[in-house]
């Protein structure tokens, strides 16, 4: 090693350089440490606290008489919780699938080197810039049978036209899907568009030379290579679906009745306004378990696939 034979003066310089190197190595960790600490405390610390509370008999304020899993038993005996959980499956499933399909189709169409692509892209992406509260209010007006779409079509002379999903307890959950898809599919389109642009044109040309038709190129070559994008999109959409709260509050208020209750609104109502902190915490933990049950296997298969692929 050349450093072994260097003069003392250059040794000092080397020492300084290694000090700088040392700082360079440590500094990022130092900078990240506080936010890591904060995240650990406020995310995982509070998760743990919520879990502890879910084992207690807490009502209006937290208290620590442990009752085991009694709150979970009560939760699953609760009619409203079943409605909320079923709604999440319906809403989440339809929302994620519709956003993916619509986003992908829009992206493919926009990718055909059309004119005014920038303008169109902006138009589709715009809903994402709105807060969910605004989306909810706008759609509440549009879907209100006496004000919105139904009233407008009837005004055109179609007196029998009926579109009253918002006030129909069986259909109201689908109004949430409509509004949420309207909001998020433009964003998914942008993700897919970026993915499509990253695919090398030579792939298309080679496939075309081999005589593959355009739909075949998309289904066999393009879609498989978009897999990481689908992965990110599902991650983002899934967490939007599970934490959906503001949209429900603004669009339906959980009604009619509690027909559009989601676990997040259930948790809020019981923990904060009904003085049942124990039960609310149990529902929060069940939401966490739901997320983990979906995400962990998915993450595992995706990340393992990447490593080997």
């Amino acid at each position, binding site marked *: 090693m050349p450093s072994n034979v260097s003069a003392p003066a250059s040794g000092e310089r080397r020492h300084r350089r290694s000090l700088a190197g040392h700082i360079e190595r440590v500094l990022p960790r130092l900078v990240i440490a506080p936010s890591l600490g904060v995240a650990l405390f406020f995310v995982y610390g509070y998760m743990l606290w919520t879990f502890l509370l879910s084992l207690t008999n807490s009502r*209006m304020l937290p208290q620590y008489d442990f009752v085991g899993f009694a709150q979970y038993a009560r939760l699953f005996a609760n009619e409203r919780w079943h409605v909320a959980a079923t709604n999440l499956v319906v809403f989440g499933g339809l929302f994620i699938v519709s956003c993916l399909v619509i986003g992908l189709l829009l992206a493919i169409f926009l990718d055909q080197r059309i004119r005014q692509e920038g303008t169109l892209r902006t138009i589709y992406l715009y809903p994402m810039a709105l807060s969910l509260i605004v989306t909810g209010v706008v759609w509440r007006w549009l879907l*209100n049978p*006496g004000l919105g779409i139904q009233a407008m079509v009837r005004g055109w002379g179609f007196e029998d036209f009926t579109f009253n999903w918002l*006030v129909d*307890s069986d259909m109201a959950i689908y109004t949430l899907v409509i509004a949420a898809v309207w909001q998020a599919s433009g964003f998914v389109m942008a993700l897919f568009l970026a993915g499509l642009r990253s695919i090398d044109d030579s792939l298309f040309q080679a496939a075309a030379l081999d005589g593959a038709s355009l739909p075949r190129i998309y289904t066999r070559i393009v879609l498989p290579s978009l897999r990481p994008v689908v992965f990110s999109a599902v991650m983002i959409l899934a967490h939007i679906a599970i934490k959906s709260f503001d949209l429900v509050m603004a669009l339906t208020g959980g*009604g009619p009745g*509690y*027909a559009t209750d989601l676990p997040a609104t259930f948790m809020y109502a019981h923990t904060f306004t*009904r*003085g049942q902190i124990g039960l609310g915490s149990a529902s929060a933990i069940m939401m966490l378990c739901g997320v983990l049950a979906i995400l962990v296997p998915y993450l595992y298969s995706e990340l393992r696939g990447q490593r080997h692929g």
Partner: protein
Amino acid sequence: MKTIHALAAGALLAAAVGQANAAEIEVLHWWTSGGEAKAAKLLKEKLEDKGHTWKDFAVAGGAGDSAMTVLKSRALSGNPPAVAQIKGPLIQEWGDMGFLGNIDKAAEADGWDDFLPEEIVAADKVDGHYAAVPVNIHRINWIWANPEVLEDSGVDHVPQTWDEFFDAADKIREAGYIPLAHGGQPWQDATVFEVVMMGIGGGDFYRKAFVDLDPEALTSDTMIESLKTFKKLRGTMDDNIAGRDWNIATSMVINGKAAMQIMGDWAKGEFTAAGMMPGEDYECVAPPMTESMFSYNTDSLAMFDVDDEGQQQAQRDLASIVLSKDFQVQFNQAKGSIPVRLDVSLDDFDACAKASREAFDVALDEDALVPSLAHGMAVSDSQQGAVFDVITNFFNDPDMKAETASERLVSAIRAAE
């Protein structure tokens, strides 16, 4: 520039001195809308006349849900306000947890027991000691009617039985109006239901069902009949009730789109704001079969346990002001309720308030004074929530039978205990 600095410093100093001598109490309340805010300001001014400082802690949001959430977090962090607006059984809960103080001294000095109705005051006492001061009495069982719409539909008076009501509703519908204005929110559904039920079942039945939550009463024939009548009311409303606020529904009566609304007497504020006079431009009548009944909703100010002598004095002063005759008249005129003091003359009040007081006296005599469940006066939060869930779901689900709903009431209430 220098003078400004000097002035500012002087003002700061003056403020500091002022605070050191008089007690500052923080008051959490949700009197934030028009008339209510005016009423709260009045209280603040009167407290400041006594040399104390009112630190305003207003949390908007109907029925105080958000205010209660804030109060809980403040109490948890060991820093509750000195005074908070709390209602009904919740006062008891806070008292049982040891958060509330004792204002018996003020009660004795002013002789509260002589002029406050026992039934109302029971909720303000914890273990026999005053922990809160009642401010007003709202009556829930009212129909607000537009006489022009009724007349135009050929209905000559506000219906007094439910049969009459449904007949009238048909006529009103034929004349092109909406018979009953309503907002599809759980608390409004529950308000209408409890009014229907107290009319059909009477005071004792109401207490058994909605105060004691007695399973036998909840599954009785009277309950089933009440549920069926309630469900039938859905047909007298329009299709767009989902999520509508109560005051929007009131404005439908004001604008002559709808004939009637079942709502507590705070609705009066909307009519007054529209420049309408009771008895002339609008009518206030008891809903069918509840004429001699009175379902009440009372606002109370609960006093939290504070160590500081000055603050305790300020709490007692505030309580005396609240129950002073002057304040009772001014506050309740602004808020639409009636004074909680029985010895206050209602000469300066409007016709509806006078009718409310008469109904109150009759109900007291006939033992038909009942706490409103829909407004958090009868049972705990969690039980109220359970009742709301069932009632609102039954009302909105065309297929649910009254029998199913009454069984669900029992199981939901049991689950919430």
